[in-house]
Every structure is written in structure tokens, then in C-alpha cells.
């Protein structure tokens, strides 16, 4: 399945876009999606674990992603 992944802040700048599409197997985990993102965006290859969100809620890498769900990866937050 093709999943559109949202990227923010430094990740967005590294990718040159606020989202990218990745091809992964059905029911892939967030971790697998992050791996696929890094294959497309070499600038992110050196990154450790990002923060991950599934449908606008924080999620861990072992969560499985279904068709049509919203996925986002981003660096540590710094609001305030």
C-alpha cells in the first residue's frame, strides 16, 4: 500500500517537502514506514528514533498502519 507520511520541522526541511509517499506492505508497522522514509530521504539516515504519530496521536514504532491512516514523523518538540 502507499502511505503518505507527514514530516515536520527539520525533517520537513531535510526532505524538501512537508509529506512524502512511501510504498510498504499491508499492515506495515510505523517502524517499517520510518525505514522506508529514510531510504527516500538520505539526509534522515543518520537520525535516531523520531517521534511518531498515528491519526494525530503519539504512537510507538510497533503500531500497525492501515490504509488511509495519517502518519507523521518528527523530531523532539520545542514549543512554548
Amino acid at each position: 500500500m502507499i502511505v503518505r507520511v507527514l514530516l515536520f520541522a527539520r525533517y520537513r526541511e531535510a526532505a524538501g517537502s512537508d509529506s512524502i509517499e512511501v510504498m510498504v506492505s499491508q499492515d506495515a508497522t510505523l517502524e517499517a514506514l520510518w525505514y522506508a522514509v529514510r531510504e527516500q530521504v538520505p539526509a534522515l539516515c543518520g537520525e535516531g528514533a523520531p517521534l511518531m504519530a498515528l491519526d494525530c496521536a503519539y504512537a510507538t514504532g510497533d503500531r500497525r498502519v492501515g490504509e488511509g491512516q495519517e502518519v507523521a514523523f518528527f523530531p523532539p518538540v520545542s514549543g512554548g
Partner: protein
Amino acid sequence: MAALCRITEDPIHPDELARAVAGPDRGALATFAGLVRDHHGGRKVVRLEYEAYVEMAERVLLEIAEEASRRFGTPHVAIAHRVGRLAIGETSVLIAVAAPHRREALAACAFAIDRVKERAPIWKKEFYEDGAVWIEGPEIVEGRAEAP
């Protein structure tokens, strides 16, 4: 619960948030404002840019307001956070809590700003005279130098 939680590109007006939480049974209004500071780690900051995952950030702000309400028994909480380009001295975040008495209002306000800094998917980029850096959590990541 009266919760006004939003991400906004427009300047934040403290009075508007205060009005949103005030009521005749509330004798205390605690507010916290975060302002853009002109220095960080010995470097002169000329401006900031905030970026948010808006849809998620508004949900997280609402969760924080609800959590503060539950913990401190203060159902009237408002949180607003700016995004976009901010000049020195502008308000980046404002929290207002109204409660019958000061103690719970102050405690809920302090709790809420700590949680916003930990949880809300918002990022700050500092612009200096000779470059710019994304702030990530408590650490600075050296970014590509950019014209201010």
C-alpha cells in the same frame, strides 16, 4: 469544561483568553505568557519561527487542558500557541486558568505550560544574525546556516 485551545498565526490577546475562562464563581485568574527572548546560549536571537502539526497540536492542547482540569479541579482552561514568524518580545504561548481560588489556578497553569513544552507537536527555529537553528527538546541541533 470550558476549554479554548488553539494554534494561531495571529497575535495572541491575553484579554480574549481571560474572558474565555472567567466567570462569576471564579475569584482567581492565573496566566502564563511565553515571550520571544533576544538571546539563547550566548547568541543574539533576531527572530523566531514556530511550526506546528496543527491538527494534532490542537488535540494535544485540549488533552492538556482536560488533564489540568482533572488534576486541579479547574475546569476553565485556555491555551493558545502562535505559529509563523515572531519578533522579539511577542507572545508565543499563553495559558489562562480561572478557578474559585488562587492555589489551584496557579498550580494548573504551571502544570499546563510544562506539559505544552513536553508534548505539543510544535517546533521553534531560532534565527541569529549569521544563521538559524532548529531547537529540538532541550538540545540545539546545528542546522545549515541561513541568511537571517
